[in-house]
């Protein structure tokens, strides 16, 4: 013991540190893969044939047959198109309405100084409103005006429910900007619109893109309104996925391929937003 040199002690400590790190890494990777496993297995099973997918297996020879079959199905194609329509138009309109509103709630002058805050709180309370609270009147209106069979009915509902989310998320990004730059721009003869498009938007660009991606994910995944306010020609992908609920463990490959198509875009978009997600969704109360 006494003969140990300093080098030996240091090396020992290093080895111990290294093994500890290694075990910790293995534990972390193990948990992460286990947690992600249902999605991973779904991705894998999409590349199986129906016969291969009957019993759980991880190793198999992959084939694109099931994906081809699913994508050549005209109904699947229609659901996909409906979903894309809702996501693209819905997100765009929500941004066009929400971003300017959020901008004047941070920097604008309304009737009373406290009005800004009041309007902002009003937007927040509409986020708390569960969609069941609006379902019945919307459903009766849509039946009466036959909006069930056009995509615009659902689109209006999505814009109504997601504009407050845009206002909410973008608010925390605008609040980071100093008010002085807009006062200075005002003196230089910049209109409000120019202040927004020329000064504010370029600075908070990443924040707005993340808000847009997150709203896109929310609309893409939304089920309750999509299920109750659409008919067969206008239903979206989550509704399509819900139709697999009755089959008792059958058609696993087909289910997996379809859900991969339904799930993958949202996961990829979601991963791109993860930094801004924390800040945007926690009202900036929490640093991201």
């Amino acid at each position, binding site marked *: 013991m006494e003969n140990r040199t300093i080098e030996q002690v240091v090396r020992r400590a290093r080895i111990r540190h290294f093994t500890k790190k290694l075990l*910790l890494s293995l534990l972390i990777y193990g948990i992460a893969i286990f947690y992600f496993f249902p999605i991973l297995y779904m991705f894998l099973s999409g590349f199986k044939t129906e016969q291969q997918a009957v019993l759980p297996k991880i190793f198999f020879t992959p084939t694109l047959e099931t994906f081809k079959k699913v994508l050549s199905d005209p109904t699947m194609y229609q659901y996909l198109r409906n979903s894309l329509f809702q996501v693209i138009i819905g997100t765009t309109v929500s941004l066009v309405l929400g971003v300017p509103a959020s901008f004047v709630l941070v920097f604008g002058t309304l009737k009373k100084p406290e009005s800004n805050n009041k309007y902002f709180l009003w937007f927040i309370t509409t986020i708390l409103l*569960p969609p*069941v609270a*609006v379902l*019945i009147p919307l459903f009766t209106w849509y039946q009466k005006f036959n909006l069930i069979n056009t995509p615009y009915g659902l689109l209006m509902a999505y814009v109504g429910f997601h504009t*407050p989310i845009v206002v909410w998320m973008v608010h925390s990004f605008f609040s980071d900007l100093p008010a002085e730059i807009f006062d200075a721009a005002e003196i230089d003869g910049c209109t409000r619109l120019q202040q927004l498009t020329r000064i504010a938007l370029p600075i908070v660009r990443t924040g707005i893109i993340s808000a847009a991606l997150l709203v896109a994910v929310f609309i893409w*995944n939304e089920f309750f309104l999509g*299920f109750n306010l659409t008919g067969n020609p206008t239903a979206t992908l989550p509704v399509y996925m819900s139709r*697999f609920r009755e089959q008792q463990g059958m058609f696993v490959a087909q289910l997996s391929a379809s*859900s991969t198509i339904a799930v993958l875009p949202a996961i990829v978009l979601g991963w791109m937003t993860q930094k801004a997600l924390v800040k945007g969704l926690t009202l900036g109360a929490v640093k991201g």
Partner: protein
Amino acid sequence: MNKRKTDYKFLLPAVFVVAIMTQVPFLLTIIFSTLRWNLSRPDLARQFNGLQNYLYFLKIEDWRHLPEFYGILWQTVFITGSTLLLCSALGFALALLLDNDVIGINIARTLMLGPFFVMSTASGVIWKTTIFNTTFGWYGVLSKLFGFQPVDLVSYHPLGVIIVLFVWQWMPFFILVLLAGLQGIPQDLIDSMQIDGVNWIQGVVRIKLPLIMNHMRIAIMLGLVFLIKEFGLILVTTAGGPGTRSYTLPYAVYMQVFSANNVGRAGALAVITVALTLLLVNLLYRSIVKRSEMYS
């Protein structure tokens, strides 16, 4: 004055659209909830019947046999409460784990975040067919391999299944927020902790947890807002069954509209759902504000 006018031009379109699509329908729902209105009985005129629809659900005639509503209310609170509790506890543990600096930690963090973005109907059918199925799913195959008889979890433990899936979907969000909190703790505080010889458990329970308590509360509040309105996952996994054993309030509203066709009663249930949401959020929000004031 002119400036103010343009400011309102920026604000009012959004206010108008949101009001038409959310507030006006909600006010109408409140009005509907006071009407006797059954879509399958067009022979009966729509008429005002006061609080009858509310009393139908809330009135207790015999304390030994509570009306169905209280079961549904309890299930809603139980599912939401257990999910939030599990998400907080497990989410904190996993956030601590993911706060370690090992190679490829970002890949692990990204993988753990995945389930949060999966649409609930897809995660419901995926779990139901590839995992919970007693003959073809992983659960069924693995339990037979180890000599157990797999039971149909979806019918025997409907609430458990729903809670597991909710936790799977929402824990990533908790991890994300709590991890942001843990990484916001200043490094010199952690260094001085080590110099003072604080052991790991003390460090976690006495120092780190109190510091990120506000992150925890915010995660719980947002989780509550989104979980209490969840509908798709329940529809695809248990469909509220067996019987009404896994109904939640939103699911009960849906059944009142589309199965019982009773607009008045559905309206009353919807209003109760909103009231419950606002009450719970308000309680949580107050505790957040109180804490924030304490710190600042």
